[in-house]
């Protein structure tokens, strides 16, 4: 398709991404979330000083997919590990990448206290309403009535309770500087999600406290739908249950144009 007519480069793979191919299922939005983080780190020139903390869950190999320093935390403990790293290396940009099982189930204590302490870290929270890695069990974020391998007849709220809305909860913490829920279900929302990730890193760079972006994400494999149907499920089922919004934005970040 190339012609002698000059052309501009509109998009290319971010340099904060490594050359590795990912093990994610086709169309899994973990890949989109990773790519957005890499693009933001490129644009902010943070690649050299960024340190990522990978979770347990499908994103367990995230350290292979980014072209930057990374450590691997025990299940749910990424915010605790990021706390230690940031306190020892305050000049570095420290972020965690966590799923909803990792962050809202086994790691609930760590995320709550990191926010309450106002740790100056950035948390990227991929909420796909299920435990992806282990075969699609019910998570604290599973929707009422949603079928999983451990709720084969649909989540029964009488038995298993209601989904947890993490962003709303963390936004009540004084230590939090930025708490936003975005979604990855279409190009317009992906662009907005990228801006939220940018602001979450800007919050850290300005020392304004704990920052988290919750990203409504898909798991086509365990939801047992095609990748495109999974995006539709996010739009139609997840967004109503987990409303998108800026739950807490530090005034200094609110006036920032990104």
């Amino acid at each position, binding site marked *: *398709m*190339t*012609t*002698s*007519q*000059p*052309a*501009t*480069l*509109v*998009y*290319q*793979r*971010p340099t904060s*991404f490594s050359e590795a*191919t*990912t093990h*994610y*299922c*086709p*169309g*899994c*939005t*973990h*890949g*989109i979330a990773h*790519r957005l983080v*890499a693009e933001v780190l490129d644009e902010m020139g943070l690649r050299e000083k960024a340190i990522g903390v990978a979770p347990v869950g499908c994103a367990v190999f995230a350290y292979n997919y980014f072209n930057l320093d990374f450590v691997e935390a025990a299940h749910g403990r990424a915010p605790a590990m990021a706390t230690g790293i940031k306190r020892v290396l305050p000049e570095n940009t420290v972020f965690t990448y966590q799923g909803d099982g990792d962050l809202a189930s086994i790691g609930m204590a760590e995320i709550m206290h990191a926010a309450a302490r106002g740790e100056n870290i950035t948390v990227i929270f991929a909420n796909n309403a299920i435990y992806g890695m282990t075969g699609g069990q019910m998570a604290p974020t599973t929707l009422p009535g949603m079928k999983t391998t451990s709720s084969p007849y649909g989540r029964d709220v009488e038995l298993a309770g209601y989904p947890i809305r993490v962003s709303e909860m963390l936004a009540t913490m004084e230590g939090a500087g930025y708490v936003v829920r975005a979604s990855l279900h*279409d*190009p317009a929302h*992906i*662009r907005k999600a990228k801006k939220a990730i940018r602001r979450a890193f800007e919050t850290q760079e300005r020392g304004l406290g704990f920052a988290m972006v919750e990203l409504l994400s898909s798991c086509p494999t365990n939801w047992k739908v*095609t*990748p*495109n149907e999974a*995006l539709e499920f996010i739009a139609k089922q997840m967004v109503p249950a987990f409303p998108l919004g800026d739950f807490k934005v530090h005034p200094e970040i609110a006036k920032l144009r990104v």
Partner: protein
Amino acid sequence: MPASGWIEVDELYCKGCELCVTACPKEVIALDMDRLTPKGYHPAHLAAEGCTGCGICAVVCPDAALTVYRHVTQRKQPSSLVH
């Protein structure tokens, strides 16, 4: 003159998920059923004329498999020129 461009699909990364196929406003992407990637997927490819180089396909691609180019139509100097 309408904007025109093209995409390149890196078959090492493409997993044939079809998110770009659905997202493309010009409906010019399809899976190439005659090819298999090293991972065994049918890769995305430009199947028709009309790509504008808008970059929307790259916004949805979970595997950063796409590079997008747009032809220069105006006289103004773009920031990065490739041929």
